[in-house]
């Protein structure tokens, strides 16, 4: 076990600060307690001072810096030289976060090192010298726990499954190695990169105010001369604005159920549910959402669920902590007013 190595990958690109995630170091420390391995860091991008200080405080023995530009990650032109680098350091365990780029690197790593890849790991346990890595499967209804007597593999960890690691003193000097990575010819040619409308990713929101089909029951009268579809779109926009206002008051984000996305009323990025996003916010406020299982799979892990619906028999009330049997168009404006008056 002496020469075992745990390698942690982080991505530090100044133009994409959201990719930097230190939570996996907590996972690495837990696994290290099991295997007493050396801890090595791979920095994709820049080794700036703040990254260096963190790496010192987390007691990494060695830092490998792979100064790779964003576009090279995007067109995946590094596989061969990355594979070569990985083989030279030959780790038994490699850990990743779950951004798109992390997962792409993890896949490369799995193929290059011929190690199994386990994604979306949510918890780590050690019992009787056996390491268990668990992930949630089957729409959140079951848990799959992988057992290891001696750990090896490529593991990626669900965002927010682990908290930031504790920082230790800085009296530690890791070895720093700058690794030359050569781009090979990529078959992918980028034609354009366009910034999208800035929607806060709902999976990171602490509070979600979600709207469903009930938003179409707005009492407001749409302007004259609209077709039925246009009138529905108008009502829905009014409804979404209202939810956005409440979300702003509470410091949260707006999400929607599938029917609004399928009928083209709301963007897909906002969809919660089986073919949308799985969210686990502190508070989920479901407004005019009936609570079909395809929707609740995506949100039933929320810590506190509040449902507002004018159908007393809506299944959403079965999973909500608090229910209000009323018209959302009466409750939400009142709630906004209440918040604003305070």
């Amino acid at each position, binding site marked *: 076990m002496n020469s075992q190595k745990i390698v942690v990958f982080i991505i530090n690109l100044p133009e*994409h600060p959201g990719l930097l995630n230190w939570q996996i170091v907590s996972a690495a420390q837990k696994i290290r307690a099991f295997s007493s391995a050396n801890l090595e860091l791979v920095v994709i991008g820049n080794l700036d001072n703040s990254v260096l200080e963190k790496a010192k405080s987390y007691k990494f023995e060695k830092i490998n810096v792979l100064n790779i530009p964003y576009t090279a990650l*995007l067109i995946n032109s590094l596989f061969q030289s990355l594979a070569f680098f990985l083989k030279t350091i030959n780790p038994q365990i490699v850990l990743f976060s779950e951004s*798109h*780029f992390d*997962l792409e690197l993890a*896949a490369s790593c*799995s*193929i290059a090192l011929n190690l*199994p*890849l386990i994604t*979306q790991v949510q918890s780590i346990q050690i019992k009787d010298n056996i390491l268990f890595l668990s992930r949630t499967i*089957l*729409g959140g*209804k*079951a*848990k*799959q*726990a*992988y*057992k*290891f007597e001696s750990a090896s593999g490529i593991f990626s960890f669900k965002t927010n499954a682990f908290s930031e690691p504790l920082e230790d003193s800085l009296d530690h000097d890791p070895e720093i190695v700058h690794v030359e990575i050569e781009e090979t010819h990529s*078959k*992918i*040619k*980028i*034609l*354009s*990169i*366009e910034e*999208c409308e800035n*929607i806060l*990713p709902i999976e990171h929101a*602490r*509070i979600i105010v979600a709207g469903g089909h009930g938003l179409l029951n707005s009492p407001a009268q749409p302007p004259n001369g609209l077709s039925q579809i246009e009138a529905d779109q108008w009502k829905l926009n009014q409804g979404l604005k209202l939810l956005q206002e409440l979300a702003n008051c*509470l*410091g949260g984000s707006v999400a929607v159920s599938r029917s609004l996305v*399928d009928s083209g009323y709301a963007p*897909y990025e906002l*969809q919660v549910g*089986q*073919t949308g996003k799985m969210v686990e916010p*502190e*508070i989920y406020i479901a407004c005019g959402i009936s609570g079909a*299982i395809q929707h609740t799979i995506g949100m039933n892990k929320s*810590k*506190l*669920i*509040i449902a507002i619906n004018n159908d007393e028999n809506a299944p959403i*009330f079965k*999973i909500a*902590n*608090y*229910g*209000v*049997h*009323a018209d959302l168009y*009466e*409750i939400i404006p*009142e*709630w906004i007013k209440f918040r604003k008056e305070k």
Partner: protein
Amino acid sequence: MRIVICIENAIDVTQPFQITENQKNIGNCVNILNPWDEFALEAAILQKEKQEAELIVLTIGDEKSDKSLRNAFAMGCDTMIRVDVDPFYLNNSQIAEILAKAFKKVGNPDLICFGKKSIDFETGMTATLVAKIMDLPYLPSITTIDELDTEKIISTFRIDQEKIMTSVNLPAVISVSKEFAEPRFPSFLGTRKAAKTSIIIWTLADLDIGPKKYANPDFNITTIPVKNVHTEMIRGNDNLEIVSMLDAKIKEAGV
């Protein structure tokens, strides 16, 4: 143009299922064509409507997968292939390895399409692993195919807050996002044709994969107990009273 669509016969997680006593498998479940794969099928069928294309739908699984294959066929595919292995105990890379061999045997596919992930085990890594094994370019979760001919595919995908348009020489591996298009239902004629068409079955030996003894599953599956929720209905004399109670509840939650 030859397009292969890879599908999964998934466990319908909205239906009841049982975990076997040894905690290694799932029994008594309902299987469906993985909903995410329907978007990949739709993307491929839309291309066939625009140009000469042969659509091959392929899966790894035992005979239980045939229904999903036929469903996919009935949407508008031409050929069905099943690699006869139970994928349950295979890990990601083993599945990708088998698929890569199967695509090779299909004979020079121009485009290999996947859904974004599976609804049951949700790894979402198969497409990219296959691409890396076959040394093909991979385009993740594409939302549009802007141009496709026998030479190249121009398509758009989205990563975080960026929309990225790329041109890629074929062959290529893609996964298709839900935003692409609403999948069609199998047609009546398609369903009849699917029932009459036989499925091509390949064994591991057909793919030159030796009789590897895959290790026993090194995982256990356990049920996550359903949160027993006691729903408290909030009632009040007027809306103001209701919202002040709701507001108090979220404050109690520490937010």
